[in-house]
């Protein structure tokens, strides 16, 4: 449920309102946020410029030539008065990310296992056992912040981020997990690599994952990973 005092509309500039729906991260937030995304799309029509859903909020960007901030606020208030959680949110299809867990492509796997007091196989099992939810996209196109990882696997970010993390790298930061869609700098603890293509400019919808999606990492051996198009080159020479 939406807590007392919320939702609240906060000014986000001339062309935006930030709708604050919740004050804490919870999986049950997502059905409300995805419902509001859908409602905004139909209520704002061509006046809608962009939507940025995140853990507890939705940023709504509108065209200030068409609507004044007060008019946009009024539309949002009437949407919020009738807002109901998306009944289909729990039935979202599960996206499977075939992942090769190996020290050669996931250099923090041994350290993470040691820290958790688990074997590497147990780390893989626990990481693959959870059906994650996508709470937000950000940092880079198609980069999905997912939660929540098994509490034994909770690990702070690297003190010094890597300059170059290969595409497909699967990592953990805190109790979140993610896969890097493209080569980028990054500070997550890497434990493997997925063969899934997370962002493709030539594919309809572009991003494999969206806020609210359900996701599982499916452990695969190296042969299968490569057969699926995964890049098995180790970190040092990986693309």
């Amino acid at each position: 449920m939406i807590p007392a005092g919320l939702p609240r509309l906060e000014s986000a500039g001339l062309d935006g309102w930030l709708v604050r729906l919740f004050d804490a991260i919870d999986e049950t937030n997502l059905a409300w946020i995805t419902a509001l995304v859908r409602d905004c799309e139909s209520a704002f029509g061509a006046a809608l410029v962009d939507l940025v859903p995140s853990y507890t909020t939705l940023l709504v960007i509108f065209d200030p030539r068409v609507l004044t901030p007060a008019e946009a606020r009024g539309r949002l208030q009437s949407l919020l008065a009738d807002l109901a959680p998306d009944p289909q949110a729990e039935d979202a299809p599960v996206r499977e990310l075939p992942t090769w867990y190996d020290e050669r492509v996931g250099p923090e796997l041994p350290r993470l296992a040691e820290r958790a007091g688990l074997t590497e196989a147990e780390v893989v099992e626990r990481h693959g056992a959870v059906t994650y939810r996508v709470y937000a996209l950000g940092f880079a196109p198609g980069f999905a912040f997912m939660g929540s990882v098994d509490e034994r696997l909770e690990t702070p970010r690297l003190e010094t981020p890597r300059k170059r993390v290969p595409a497909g790298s699967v990592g953990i930061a805190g109790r979140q997990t993610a896969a890097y869609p493209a080569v980028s700098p990054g500070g997550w603890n890497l434990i493997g690599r997925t063969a899934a293509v997370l962002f493709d400019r030539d594919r309809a919808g572009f991003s494999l994952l969206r806020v609210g999606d359900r996701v599982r990492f499916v452990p695969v051996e190296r042969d299968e990973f490569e057969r699926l198009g995964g890049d098995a080159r180790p970190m040092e020479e990986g693309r």
Partner: protein
Amino acid sequence: MRQETVTGLSVERAGPLALLQDAGRFGVRRLGVTQGGPADVHAWAWANHLVGNAWGAGALEVTFGGLALKAARDLSLALCGADLGATLDDDPLAPWRGFRMRAGQVLRFAQPTSGLRAYLAVAGGFRADPVLGSLSCVVREGLGGHDGQGRPLAEGDRLAVGPGAKKGPRGKAVPVEERPDYDAVPRLALLPGAQVAEFEGASLHAAFGQAWTVDDRADRMGVRLLGPRLRCRLTSLISEGLGLGAVQVPPDGQPIALLNDRQTIGGYPRLGALTPLACARLAQCPPGREVRLAAVSAERALAEYRRFRAKFG
């Protein structure tokens, strides 16, 4: 539909950073894709306007200078924004004007004498295949630009131009009152945000009463401002969507104004958001420049923005 394009200019020498920019990339921010678009929308819009292009045509954003372009054919162009010591062949070329290049002529940018970013528009617009609906070049994301891969211009690149607008140029020069004095200390209009109440009173007094200095950590993602340390009762938040111009304050108390290539979400408390035209003005401030923040009402900011957009149809 394939657009009719021809090579208009070739790159003789690449400067530090020259990027193709249309109005920006919209509708995909929920996928983590940034907005892009011209850092100085004011100068970009005037450059396109002078050559007769509709709002949104692709123009070149030339940062710092250094670039040299050779005309492959006769072209009608306009240069607005920073004075980067441009010359056409060897004749000085002042900004805020339309001009013509004959095939073979070379346009060279030296270094900034006033402002940081110049905008070069061509009648018909610079053309490229749009990526995610836009040709705006975002280097960090590898999206857009003349080759679609988010690369800045490099020596040997060829820039395609569309067929010239039928109406032709809309005048020779931008009215003088529309040309900002980039050497003056700007007052950057800021709409206070909801978290402004979480800042200590003395910090708010300082934020709007004292001068800020543009740090050398300044790029198309954001501009860091150095000055009094701002203290906020909130330290970090759960990440949430960031609009253009959002002024976030990390724990070191030094604000960062977020510009076109900012990340889509972030978790620091915010003073509010600069208006689009304040962002444009900030984008012309070199490191070391003094700026001031001035709170404005949404009504006033909206009226200013609508007046600005109305000039360009």
